């Protein structure tokens, strides 16, 4: 009898392994303990990654124990507060889990460590430091690097700002993903659910329009 029960248990585990995300979520909401075990198996690593990713990106100083604590908090809130109800009708939940884990990390630092979120994401700071160090004057062609061009960077900045503000919301979004986050065309297309060709054309158009505005300045 014991062997049979073991075999059936194994079969049930196999079934859980191949279960769709939606079904798994529904079972977790119904407090199926075995389904919960499978849910944890699938997403424990992702939650851990998401916490570390957010903390690193937002330049928090953290310890390994903080990550553990946050990891536990995330799963506690999913199980006890039934947060999974929010995504019970969604096809994919991995993205949502990443967001929830990141939020939990920030909340933890706000409440337990009394640390407010930073003003900027560290990668932006790096860009400013790196690109700012070379300054706009370095980017300018050599014939512009005379004393009369002392106000050039400001002027260029203003023109560029006006140019960026004239873009449509979607264009601005594409531009940010491409330049700030270094996302490839394919990745942007996947993220925004757009054809690859449209993304490529958009980026080309945006840059040529901005170039036109800056013509004569760089």
């Amino acid at each position, binding site marked *: 009898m014991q062997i049979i*029960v073991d075999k059936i248990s194994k079969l049930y585990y196999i079934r859980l392994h191949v279960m769709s995300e939606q079904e798994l979520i529904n079972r977790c909401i119904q407090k199926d303990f075995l389904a919960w075990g499978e849910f944890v*198996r699938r997403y424990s690593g*992702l939650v*851990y990654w998401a916490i570390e990713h957010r903390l690193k*990106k937002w330049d928090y100083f953290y310890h390994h124990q903080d990550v553990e604590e946050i990891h536990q908090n995330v799963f506690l809130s999913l199980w006890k507060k039934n947060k999974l109800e929010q*995504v019970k009708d969604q096809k994919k939940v991995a993205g949502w889990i*990443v967001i929830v884990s990141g939020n939990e990390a920030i909340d933890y630092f706000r409440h337990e460590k009394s640390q407010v979120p930073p003003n900027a*994401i560290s990668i932006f700071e790096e860009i400013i430091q790196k690109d700012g160090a070379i300054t706009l004057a370095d980017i300018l062609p050599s014939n512009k690097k005379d004393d009369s061009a002392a106000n050039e960077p400001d002027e260029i900045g203003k023109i560029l700002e006006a140019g960026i503000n004239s873009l449509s919301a979607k264009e601005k979004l594409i531009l*940010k993903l491409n330049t700030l986050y270094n996302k490839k065309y394919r990745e942007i297309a996947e993220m925004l659910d757009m054809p690859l060709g449209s993304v490529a054309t958009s980026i080309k158009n945006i840059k040529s329009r901005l170039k036109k505005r800056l013509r004569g300045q760089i």
Partner: protein
Amino acid sequence: MKKIDKLIRFKLAQEAKYAGLGPAAGCPSDSELNRYLSGDTVQSKKALIEGHLAECYLCLDKLVSSYEGEKLLAKRKIKEPPKYITWKVKNIERLNNKISIKNRVDFTLNNKALPPKTNKLLTTEKAVIKWLPKNLKKNRWLIASITAFALSFAFPPVFLQFLLAAGILGGKWIFDSENARTLIMIYNAWKKGGEKEAGEMIGALKGRIPNKK
């Protein structure tokens, strides 16, 4: 990187730096963002979210992170956390409350809080036993045999294999039943010690059949 790209990047990073990362009133909910990422948003809502994402660095960062996480998970490139961390959250209901840092350290150092290996199995057993109705359990071999027999017609190329499986499972059902097992025991006793032994066995087994001496 081209000059123009560097300029744009610098300008946008500057803008992002001064924009701050606090949540704004119009921020879409986390589930809405996820729905957007899954391509499961209606067109009108999509435009609204895109309009917001173009201005809000917090939401844009969430979107990018969730995309990256999803991709890593799909490619199985995410490193598993230490096992005891996963174990703790798996057994969240049993633990009832959060494990304090002190206990966690004890756990890590002594490994005393590790559940016995059988714990997981016991939970599984209970769930499975609850899951299977009584009759289904009793006649599982018969059901398996009938299923194999039915499948032999469904898949003609493997007709014989399924038929054989049906036979084996049927045989298992017959010999697994209580009466069959009793008969086998009596037969073995008879073989060993003749009628007397068999009689004793019958009496001992059931206490119903009188022992003929």
